[in-house]
């Protein structure tokens, strides 16, 4: 019932474009994550979908209904779109207590008293806010406020839910439990979910598909695995999973396998292209071994809990990231072996 299709959608603020020519479809019931660097237009896209902003070009349909059409000068107002929204800044109503903030959407939809109480209680419970029901938003901690915003959005039954970094202020344990709340909600209602996050692992863990955005454009829109394992271009390769992109020369195809020269060594690569030009090196493509072909020096060590992230500089000057359980010191020399990285072509 709620396929969302965008066609040639664009938005400028005072002439400065924030979104360009977005054409895509979020399928009914799909869980889509929007991932991208700060300022790339994620919030803007959500606001266009919700109807808070009129696009500068293009059109948006939700299900069979065209909700915004610039050329036709048509616009369905937000309150008629039946869309839930979680604001990056929470936007709690400061004059209502937590319970009222959460129950308000139900009041609007004219549920019975008993039902309102029941559903509100349930939403408060799911977000762990039962004890705070009578507080005012100003008396809550940041994470608690964020959870109120979540509860408010999830309490009603929207066709689509737009979430703008809804877990940014929550700790890992709470995130995990909130993620469960989302997936349960998603399963129960079948609503299309569009979820903005800055956190890749969150996006990958929850989303059916991820749209990676940069500078107002969607760079790649794919399943988490495809995105991670088969990035389309340099931006995606570098942004997702912290890959290092290096050029590749002398590509040869033998049987079904591709080989090429990367950082001075000849390795096997995987690719969707016949003539890829670059490879993406991620920590899991790099194994530390005394005998590794590639010599590198440890430049920085970061503790990740149980393991270390090594930032190494190869002899040719390229920075490569590797993971290890053993501790290395800055300045140590080590050898790296590259195992079948992903390659793509870029002009």
């Amino acid at each position: 019932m709620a396929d969302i299709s965008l066609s040639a959608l664009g938005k400028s603020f005072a002439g400065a474009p924030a979104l360009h020519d977005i054409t895509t479809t979020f399928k009914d019931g799909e869980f889509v994550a929007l991932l991208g660097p700060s300022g790339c237009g994620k919030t803007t896209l959500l606001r266009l979908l919700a109807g808070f902003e009129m696009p500068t070009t293009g059109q948006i349909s939700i299900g069979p209904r065209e909700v915004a059409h610039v050329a036709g000068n048509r616009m369905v107002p937000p309150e008629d779109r039946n869309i839930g929204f979680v604001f990056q800044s929470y936007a709690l109503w400061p004059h209502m207590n937590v319970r009222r903030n959460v129950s308000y959407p139900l009041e609007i939809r004219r549920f019975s008293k008993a039902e309102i109480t029941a559903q509100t209680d349930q939403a408060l419970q799911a977000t762990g806010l039962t004890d705070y029901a009578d507080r005012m938003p100003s008396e809550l901690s940041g994470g608690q406020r964020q959870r109120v915003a979540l509860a408010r959005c999830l309490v009603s039954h929207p066709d689509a839910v737009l979430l703008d970094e809804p877990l940014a202020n929550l700790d890992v344990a709470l995130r995990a439990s909130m993620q469960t709340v989302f997936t349960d909600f998603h399963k129960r209602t079948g609503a299309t979910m569009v979820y903005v996050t800055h956190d890749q692992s969150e996006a990958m863990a929850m989303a059916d598909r991820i749209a990676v955005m940069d500078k107002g454009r969607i760079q790649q829109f794919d399943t988490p695995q495809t995105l991670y394992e088969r990035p389309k271009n340099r931006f995606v390769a570098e942004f997702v999973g912290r890959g290092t992109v290096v050029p590749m020369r002398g590509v040869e195809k033998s049987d079904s396998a591709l080989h090429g020269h990367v950082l001075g060594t000849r390795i096997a690569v995987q690719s969707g292209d016949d003539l890829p030009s670059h490879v993406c090196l991620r920590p899991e493509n790099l194994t530390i071994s005394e005998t590794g072909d590639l010599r590198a020096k440890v430049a920085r060590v970061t503790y990740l809990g149980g393991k270390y992230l090594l930032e190494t500089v190869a002899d040719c000057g390229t920075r490569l990231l590797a993971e290890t359980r053993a501790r290395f010191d800055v300045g140590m020399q080590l050898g790296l072996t590259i195992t079948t990285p992903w390659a793509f072509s870029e002009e």
Partner: protein
Amino acid sequence: MGVLTKNGGSRSEGWLLSTILIVAISLTLAPVLRLFVEGVTDQGAVGLSLAGEVLRQPSTLSALTHSLVTAGFGTLVSVVLGSAFAFLVALTDLRAKAALVFCLMIPMMIPPQITALSWTQIMGPSSVLLKTLGLAPPLGSPQPLYSAQGIILLLGIQHMSIIFLTLRAGLRAIPQEVVEAARISGARGLRTWWQVVMPLTLPSLAAGTAITFVTALGNFGIPAMLGIPAGYATLPTLVYQKLAGMGTSVLAEVSILAMLIGAVAVTGILTQRFFQSRQRVYLVGATSRPLAIPLGAARLPVEVLLWAVVCTILVLPMFGLLATSLVPAYGVPLRLDTVTLEAWTEVLLRQPVTTRAFANSFGLAIGAAVVLMLLCLPLAWLMERNPTRLSRLFDSLLDLPYALPGVVLSIAMILLLIKLPFTDATLYGTIWIIFLAYLARFFAVMFRPVQASLKQLDPAMGEAAQSVGASLFQRLRDVIVPLSAPAAAAGAILVFLTAFNELTVSALLWSSGTETLGVVIFNLDDSGETAMASALAMTIVLVVMALMVLVQLMSRRFPKGVVPWQT
């Protein structure tokens, strides 16, 4: 499919905007338009010759100058006094804030001519106070208040409550963290105030200043009492002077002068808007706890100073008023053997008109405050969200009925409403014509503070409600109105207080049975019953104070920030 509006607005918004806008325009601008027609038609023919003549008269020019000087500097005095109080009360850890705020509302409650009267009584050669202190100037010495400075001073005092109330409502909206961020950056007291608090309250301050200026410009009572004896005419007193003349073209001349006042007011408003349009700040989120920056050692001196000011501007004139109400005739010194309650018993117990006037004024003031609130809140919100050319035009003209001298507005109301089209019915002579006149006149008083606060409201508040499907009406009722409640309350209180004492508009519109308190006081004073007039004015002050106590008792039922004297 909806129609296109600028930001996620909706069809219902456009529809509602046009409806309310049309109501508001017919309420406020129709009388002004009627007056304009009067000014440019001379004996049935349209022409500007009379206008040119009136505007060229030297008296017009000098009255214009006087008006600008007194209204301008008077506003300055109000701004200094009112904002000093507002900032200190809202931002620091002063004690007894509630009492202070309570007292600061009182100047607004005393009709201007009574203020002037009581001040002249305590300042002149016959001042009971000065006589008692042995400081009374000799007979024949000039009354120092009969001067431009006197007018400025009293205008300033009279209107400081306006600044105080609007500014305080604005200050309530500043997020606490924004001030904390400045302090942690090392900004100290005054600097935080000047560079962070002040710019964020500028919209409210500007709105307050604009209303104050317009109020001062249209004030008749004070320049009449102080300026006429000094031969210092302002535009409203010049209008009165014209009316006292006998020519056949008085109405046209008066309309032209009124238009001149209106033009000055609109220029003032547009200037304010020009300076304000350059900055727009949204206050994201609302404050939780009131700010209370410690004053430290300065607290006691500041408190003493503030209370001293309150005593001077409040207790002294009240004392003068009380003294006058207790003597049998004007000029009789107040001594134990001269004290009489005759005036009080006469005006309160024997004159039936007093009760009637109380009922009328109370009904009119409450009614105007309520109707205007219902009208202005949605209108201000809608105009803010979907500005149209018409709404922008209206925005710049809506102060006109407030700026015109009251007499002129009431002439316009008579011209407009004496014969209703298509019927034999007339509103003239009924209380409704006064009510309509009040709605027109006090529209700006309600609208401006609300507009200022809505301009700063984080748009996400409304959007959040939209996203859960709240209709326009529900959004207004549940989110927008409560969030702008402090400003709306400030506006409503101002409307109530000014309307409760109003004289100049009802002066021409009352008839037997529809007298207002202002009219009764004026008639008493005009008939030489100064003592009774003073007794009645004192009664009004006491009644309003009683009302405020009542509100205080019910304050827990109101949204936060609505009762201005609560912290």
